[in-house]
């Protein structure tokens, strides 16, 4: 049995949040530079150029990449041979969120309940944490600061098992285009296909944090990813809805088994700010 102090987890999560708030993922920067090179529309180019400038000003000026510093979302994979001492994983993460909110400082963007009171918790807690158990004695954390604009435009449908891949492509493309500029395109699409109602939403969220632009290992799904990307970029919403051929940077699908009566599809939208990282402890 290996021991890991909750303070170590707290420090690692704190460092991660402080880092991703100001420093753009180099892969996103690269993808946006590529988008800039192939963009046809002059306004879209102008905006892409500004986004790329923001990537260097943000760490230099210590101003967050985006003022919506997001909800902290954590996927934790906890080795069954690992024991956390002096507190729990959840406490450690929430302590880190609280501390980062104070020090960065981050915008206090979380309310205590969705309906009625909507009192701001003032410290960005609670984080949304998903835990899975793995073999071994490591703790892997995928940490993200997820903005509200893109999250709000996400969608889910329990489709008919008779639906074809064409039906799925149109459902997804129509949904993304209906969102227009609200999720701040260019976007990363996390798509879940399969599982059940809650499972498909989790697949979609997880898919966002796959390595940017990676193709699904199953060529049938990889082709579907490529089709969705090509169709969306051809249909002209463009950077911040101002037109052009760069509505999406990447499409990631994760698939899972499901009930004979089901074909769940979920699409989780992620904006170009895409603040995320991976930590191993």
């Amino acid at each position: 049995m290996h021991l890991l102090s909750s303070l170590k987890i707290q420090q690692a999560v704190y460092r991660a949040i402080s880092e991703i708030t100001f420093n753009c993922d180099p892969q996103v920067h690269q993808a946006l530079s590529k988008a800039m090179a192939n963009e046809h529309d002059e306004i879209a180019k102008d905006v892409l150029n500004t986004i790329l400038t923001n990537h260097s000003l943000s760490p230099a000026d210590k101003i967050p990449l985006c003022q919506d510093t997001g909800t902290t979302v954590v996927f934790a994979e906890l080795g069954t041979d690992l024991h956390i001492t002096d507190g729990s994983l959840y406490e450690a993460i929430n302590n880190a969120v609280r501390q980062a909110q104070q020090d960065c400082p981050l915008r206090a963007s979380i309310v205590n309940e969705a309906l009625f009171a909507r009192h701001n918790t003032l410290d960005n807690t609670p984080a949304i944490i998903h835990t899975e158990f793995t073999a071994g004695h490591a703790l892997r954390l995928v940490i993200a600061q997820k903005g509200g604009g893109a999250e709000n435009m996400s969608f889910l449908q329990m489709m008919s098992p008779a639906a074809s891949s064409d039906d799925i492509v149109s459902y997804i493309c129509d949904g993304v285009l209906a969102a227009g500029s609200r999720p701040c395109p260019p976007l990363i699409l996390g798509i879940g296909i399969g599982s059940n109602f809650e499972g498909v939403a989790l697949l979609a969220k997880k898919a966002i944090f796959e390595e940017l632009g990676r193709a699904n290992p199953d060529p049938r799904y990889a082709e579907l990813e490529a089709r969705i990307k090509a169709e969306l970029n051809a249909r002209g919403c463009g950077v911040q809805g101002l037109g052009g051929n760069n509505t999406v940077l990447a499409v990631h699908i994760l698939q899972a088994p499901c009930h004979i009566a089901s074909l769940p599809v979920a699409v989780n939208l992620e904006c170009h700010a895409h603040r995320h990282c991976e930590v191993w402890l």
Partner: protein
Amino acid sequence: MSFKTIKLSLPLSPEEILDLHYKDKVLLSGTLYTARDQAHKRLCKILQVGEQLPFDLAQTAIFYCGPSPAAAGKICGGIGPTTSSRMDPFTPTLLHAGLKVMIGKGDRAPATVDAIRAANAIYLIAIGGISAVLSRCIVSCETFLWPELGAEAVYKMQLKDFPCYVGI
């Protein structure tokens, strides 16, 4: 460049607004006020009971923005637009009270588009996810109303060459 870039200062005259066209780039200067959902609710309540707002809507702009807090020694934190369509239900009331310029992101409902056009007002689109760039365009920033709302309070901001694009 195939699009027009125009430097303007608030308040905008009716002629300046008429001269703007969809997708023109505007570098905006002058004083404006931020307001998100909660502030819109409160501003509309004040107008509905027949009272005066503490600033003249006709002379300024409303920016749909909830900034991130300023670090010690900084003028402001991260600046950027929030989704405008959430403000659609309140927009006619504010237009009626004289509002001419709104800044946010995303499409407006068809009825809001009509109301904005009918009032000879203008909707400008700011870009999301470029907070550090936009923060450099803020000359001053102070909490103006309802500090208890945090990011949703009304902030008074002075802008210098703030980039945005004509949306309506």
